[in-house]
């Protein structure tokens, strides 16, 4: 059963990962937000925005997006390779 589920599991993981990387609200309530210790990336973005440092905020956001995108892309490629393998 697991092999048949693998593609779906992979996509779910990708979405969950992207969502988890971006989650903000619930995390800042309980995290403590100590710099270099329990600070999450989205919080950094908000701090940069509060200081009107748009460039800094965008840089962090872009990095996060790239990371998520890379993971999703890798998963998509894996899926496509898997599909090709199954079709032969």
């Amino acid at each position: 059963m697991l092999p048949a589920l693998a593609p779906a599991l992979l996509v779910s993981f990708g979405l969950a990962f992207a969502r988890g990387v971006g989650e903000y609200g619930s995390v800042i309530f309980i995290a403590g937000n100590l710099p270099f210790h329990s600070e999450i990336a989205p919080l950094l973005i908000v701090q940069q925005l509060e200081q009107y440092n748009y460039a800094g905020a965008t840089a962090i956001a872009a990095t996060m997006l790239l990371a998520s995108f890379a993971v999703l892309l890798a998963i998509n490629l894996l899926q496509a390779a898997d599909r090709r393998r199954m079709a032969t």
Partner: protein
Amino acid sequence: MSTREPRWVRWTLIAVALAFLGLNLALPLAAVFAGALAKGLTVYRAAVVEPDAVAAMRLTLTVAAIAVPLNIAFGLAAAWAVTKFDFPGKALLISLIDLPLSVSPVVSGLIYVLLFGLQGWAGQWLRAHDVRIIFAVPGIVLATVFVTFPFVARELIPLMTEQGRSDEEAARSLGASGWTTFTRVTLPNVRWALLYGVLLCNARAMGEFGAVSVVSGHIRGLTNTLPLHIEILYNEYNYVAAFAVASLLAGLALVTLVAKSLLEWRYGDQLTGSGH
């Protein structure tokens, strides 16, 4: 369908699933209501009718009342375009529809700040025309629309794909106009999936924190939605009031869950399209 697993395996799996649900769903909800009523009903009532809280409620309801219908329209249009027609760039549109789900809410808000904020692309033009988007209600609405956009579309697209185009073609061949076909054939075919998507969209619209937090400016009584108001109360160590207001959202979550389950139970086959 009976399987050959021994009873203890089945019971263990069920126990694990229930424990997970209990830990992540029942316990937090119970904690919210317990914390809200910790100092009794009077304090609860006071927190809920406090002017800033009422303003936050009103704003949340207003935003949802604008964002949800907009997303119904967008979702229907997108699903209709994607499933009934072929055009170049269709695959790109489908990926774009899913985009808000995989992007951090903070980044979603950031997009609007970069577009419409004072230092943003349209910032100078907006200032010249005295139009306030960021740090005002329009910005909150926009951010909420962006973040909740996929919910309606994602419910409709698989169902409409599965239903195909023949119903619409039949209606056209019988002389119906595009609009008549849409209202009398397409919509009735997807009504329960649409309602389901609206439920999810509404729950997210009322509960959205990250994106709204970035664009709202946190002006008490003016640009604070319920989730933001809860954060303020919490940061002021006013825990009981925070839980009291949070219990409203928790109540909304419960209602949404119940409605969702009812729909799944009664119209399950029409949500995922196995009825043709």
